[in-house]
């Protein structure tokens, strides 16, 4: 280490700056990165489809989902900060092995499907620049991402690619330029209503699945654990946990604001103006940006999707492979050198191939984005039960168990996601 560590409230040693601006900036951490990763192509596709199909009718979901998302992510981060172990390792140490196997299998299937459709969306984005078929484009995209995460630094990849998310800013501007019916927007935002049929329940499950996503629990938990382990020191103090809460709030607020404006602008442009109910191609999805960018809308959409995808695919694949590596006791993590975590990186390369193969299943790549979100929606309830039990287990987190508010909102979130998934399952029978 090159500088003197400074103790923070008896726990979590951090190298604090004496400069107030630099100190304020250091508050931002894994929560914001996780929030940005939440707006992955599957998320953006699901939000756009929501707006195209239901108009402004489901805007209220973004407000309802915000506390659900913050609670799930904060609890995950708290487990990471307290145990300084990955969620997989925590399950391995404190619960029967079959629990770990089931969690790894569920996460593996959902994450690889999600990564696969995200790779397809990135390929669809590149297809708008380069006239090569999306299926063929999938292969170089998967290879590029595999090379990036195996031989590159994920920290640098995050830092150099996150700027592409700025293209999502176009959704905010487009919403205002599309001459929305503000009365309908306000009604959709503040008055919850939902027709109880398969189509709307599918969309609710997809929205919950892509927002309160299990892979994000694992990801933020691991990021927090790694950050705190590197920082050294004892158990996290209250001040440290307040920083984690603030970081999580900022990240999730950003994520939900983007979600709100993607639904808003897609509703205004695709549903109300163009009369579209279903998005079936990248070009059609990009039409939501037409009011702000005209003919450049497709290219702007492509930039946003490519950036969001390159941030999300490594986290999706790595969080699944991390959990499997825990089962086998392999050295793992994207911060490891390939020579020191050979098995982890080989499995990661295999996982990338499997994810890429999803695009050869004959499913429309844009509609597959929503399908992947629905699958995540079914996985969310059991994973929420797991993190709620872990975060209330004194053997795992000591005296840092959940307070009353966290338990109420956490179990309410578990109940809502379960009810939505069961409701959809009933309509499918």
């Amino acid at each position, binding site marked *: 280490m*090159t*500088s*003197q560590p400074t103790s923070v409230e008896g726990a979590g040693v*951090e*190298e604090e*700056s*004496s*400069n107030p601006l*630099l100190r304020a*900036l*250091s*508050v*931002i*951490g894994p929560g*914001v*990165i996780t929030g*940005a990763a939440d707006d992955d192509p599957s998320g953006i596709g699901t939000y756009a489809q929501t707006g195209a199909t239901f108009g402004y009718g489901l805007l209220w979901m973004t407000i309802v989902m915000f506390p659900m998302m913050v609670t799930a992510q904060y609890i995950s981060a708290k487990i990471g900060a307290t145990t300084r172990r990955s969620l997989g390792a925590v399950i391995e140490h404190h619960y029967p092995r079959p629990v770990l196997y089931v969690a790894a299998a569920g996460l593996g299937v959902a994450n690889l499907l999600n990564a696969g459709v995200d790779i397809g969306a990135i390929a669809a984005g590149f297809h708008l*620049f380069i006239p090569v078929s999306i299926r063929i484009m999938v292969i170089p995209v998967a290879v*590029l991402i595999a*090379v*990036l995460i195996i*031989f*590159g*630094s994920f*920290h*640098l*990849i*995050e*830092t*150099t*690619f*996150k*700027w*592409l*998310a*700025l293209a999502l*800013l*176009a959704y*905010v*501007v487009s919403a*205002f*330029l599309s001459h929305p019916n503000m009365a309908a927007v306000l009604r959709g935002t503040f008055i919850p209503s939902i027709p109880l049929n398969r189509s709307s329940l599918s969309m609710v499950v997809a929205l919950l699945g892509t927002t309160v996503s299990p892979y994000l629990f694992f990801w933020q938990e691991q990021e927090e654990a*790694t*950050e705190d382990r*590197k920082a050294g020191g004892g158990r996290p103090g209250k001040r440290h946990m307040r920083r984690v809460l603030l970081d999580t709030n*900022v*990240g999730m607020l*950003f994520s939900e*604001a983007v979600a709100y404006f993607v639904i808003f602008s897609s509703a205004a442009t695709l549903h109300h103006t163009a009369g579209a109910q279903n998005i079936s191609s990248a070009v059609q999805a990009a039409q939501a940006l037409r009011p*702000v*960018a*005209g003919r*450049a809308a497709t*290219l*702007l959409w492509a*930039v946003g999707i490519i*950036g969001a995808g390159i941030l999300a695919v490594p986290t999706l694949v790595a969080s699944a492979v991390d959990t499997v590596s825990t089962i086998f006791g392999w050295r793992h993590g994207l*911060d*490891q*050198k390939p020579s020191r975590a050979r098995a982890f990186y080989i499995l990661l390369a295999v996982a990338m191939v499997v994810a890429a193969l999803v695009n050869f299943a004959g499913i429309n790549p844009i509609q597959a984005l929503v399908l992947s979100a629905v699958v995540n929606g079914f996985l969310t309830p059991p994973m929420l039960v797991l993190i709620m039990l872990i975060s209330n287990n004194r053997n795992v987190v000591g005296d840092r168990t959940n307070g009353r508010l966290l338990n109420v909102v956490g179990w309410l979130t578990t109940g809502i996601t379960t009810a939505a998934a069961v409701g959809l399952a009933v309509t499918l029978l």
Partner: protein
Amino acid sequence: MTSPRTRSDTIRVLALLGSVLMFGGWVIVILSAFHHIGNLALVIGVAVVAFGVVLIPAGMDLVAAREVKRNARSIVISAVPAVGLFLVALVTLHTNGPAAVVASLCEIAGMAAYLWAWWAA
């Protein structure tokens, strides 16, 4: 002799400067594709600041989270594709002459500053 805290702060300032410059470069490229900017200057201004507040500080933890994969190969593999995409966006979104030059300078200088901080951390 430079104290450890001064050195950490220098790294953080360099990382912050790099991030702000890269952010600036991308803002110029993205906004150049927008129509009707004048009508919605306030909305765009607020949105740009909000994106900046969230995106710029993320990744500033270079000192706390010291990189294990710190070598020239990592830099080339991680940064070159991002620069390539920046240039593709610059050309395809038709960023005009002076704006394109300023955006490119921001991106190159910003990335150099950030990579320097990453290497020195």
